[in-house]
């Protein structure tokens, strides 16, 4: 039996790794392949406050509608007359989204909290995260506990650079909590 050093073995392993092709993935699983408006992305998130184990739930996320610029601003003003206008170089985008949750295993009695800070964020095409929009989204807002078997639709507001015509929307289930709860999902915010 031929023994090779760990270093050369690692090199050989890396070469073999480079030659292998990963399997194709569904849309919405990476920033390079965000799901377009109208596409439902399925994933799994873990819910619960049990420190020993979280329960897995199937989640379906759909970006239903994107509204930008003047129309978005009018909707924001209708929701809150005191809404702050965007700077000259920026503009608001509103996204209407739907979340559905289904239990995978028993007991399936946990809930997922929608609306945690930075749970839904806009990203620039060159990978920068935009700060949260300093406005109140129109009703229904996307917030509150979502339980297994439930579906919730609502609006979320973002503030992006005017010249950024292809921003992304990232759903990060981990945001706002102490625990990592699922994969980041990606949508076309245009």
């Amino acid at each position, binding site marked *: *039996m*031929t023994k*090779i050093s*760990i270093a050369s*073995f690692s090199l*050989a*392993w890396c070469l*073999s*790794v480079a*030659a*292998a*092709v*990963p*399997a194709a993935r569904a849309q919405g699983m*990476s*920033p390079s392949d965000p799901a377009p408006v109208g596409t439902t992305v399925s994933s*799994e*998130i*873990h819910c619960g406050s*049990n*420190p*020993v*184990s*979280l*329960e*897995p739930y199937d989640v379906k996320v759909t970006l239903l509608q994107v509204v930008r610029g003047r129309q978005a601003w009018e909707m924001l003003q209708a929701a809150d007359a005191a809404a702050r206008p965007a700077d000259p170089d920026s503009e608001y985008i509103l996204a209407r989204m739907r979340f559905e949750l289904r239990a*995978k*295993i*028993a*007991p399936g009695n946990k809930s997922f909290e929608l609306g945690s800070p930075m749970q839904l964020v806009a*990203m620039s095409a060159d*990978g*920068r*995260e935009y700060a949260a929009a300093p406005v109140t989204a129109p009703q229904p807002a996307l917030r509150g506990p979502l339980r297994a078997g439930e579906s919730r639709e609502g609006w979320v507001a973002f503030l992006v650079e005017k010249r950024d015509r292809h921003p992304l929307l*990232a759903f990060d289930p981990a945001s706002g909590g*102490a*625990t*990592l*709860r*699922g*994969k*980041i999902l990606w949508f076309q915010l245009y």
Partner: protein
Amino acid sequence: MGLPTAPISTQRFLEVAKTITFKKGMPRQRMTYVPHPVSGRPPEVVRKYLEGNDPVSGKPILEELLAALTRPLDDEEKKTGFVTRPPRPRLIGPHTPANLERMMVENGWTDGLPVVLPTEARVAAMLKGTRRAPGEIVGLMRPSPPHEGWEYTVEMVAANAVMAGARPEHLPVILALASTGVTSLFSSTTSFARMVLVSGPIAREIKMNSGIGALGPFNEANAVIGRAWTLMSKNLGGSIAGETYMGSQGNNLNYNNVCFAENEAALPAGWKPFHVQKGFKPEESVVSTFTGWSLINHAGAAARNKEEFKRVIAGLSASGMGMGVGQAVILLDPIVARDLGESFDTKEKFGAWLIQSLAAPGRVPGMGAAMEIIVVGGEANPCLTIGDFSYISSARVDPWR
């Protein structure tokens, strides 16, 4: 919070801190360390630590903390965006079998015992055990809540099943177990153990052992299913000793995770199988998981009447097992179950009596808040085994056939 924060930890957690801050997107987190441990150390010793230097950076601890809160951020610390990980290859190789085996051991992909190499042919054969597509996502598993979850497909689970020595008929149970997302190698420094119970028709179909030696190394299905869970927890759930697994002494039960089937045929009249107690139909096949630390065996005739039973349980409770966390799984040999069945016509009534008995004055706190009663054994001894375990969750096996 949006507030400048300076974390301080003990030196033993340096690697864990590096891993977590990297995976949580804050690789430049300004950590400060003190000598380990601080638990149980008198105040004057802790003060001396704080007046001294960080054992990792060598800098004075107090100055380091204040600098962490006041030194302006650099560009790296202000970065946003996402870091994608290297692409995961579907195949590894080609290499000689010996080198692949050595690589797996040295990378921590095994339980230290020889594994069956998951060649494409073997994985394809394993996949005949399920109708589900190889590329279908099964779930997400993490070593404990703060850590990242890894995602895995049917094929990845099948590869681990091959490594464990499983056969295709075992795969639906292993897939159901994987679908729970529960790790068998939970990260706590207290060294958790897990238990896995298979209920319903599949236990008979795949010839699991619920009789003599059921908790021991005497049955293929019991052995490989329990082992597969450990391998999955490392390979699909990211459990890495010293980095994402911090059990200070480890737990020997992790090799097999106490994998067995309930002796449903030996249940006294009125005593339901465990999965039925949890709301499943008798004809459904179900895998259930439990978490705890230890098992204590009580062999002999002492458990044959109620009063002696109470004394046994109270004594075990007083032993401090499970750190008095108020949970127990009681594994009754069928002889004991039959005797108890004469006084209690359901498991629930027996469990309630036990909890009430332990709530009496003089009871040792910590035992009795949640009791799970399971019948297993071969009627060779009126024994019982009590574990400081609590029920986590159950998953149906049938959808994975």
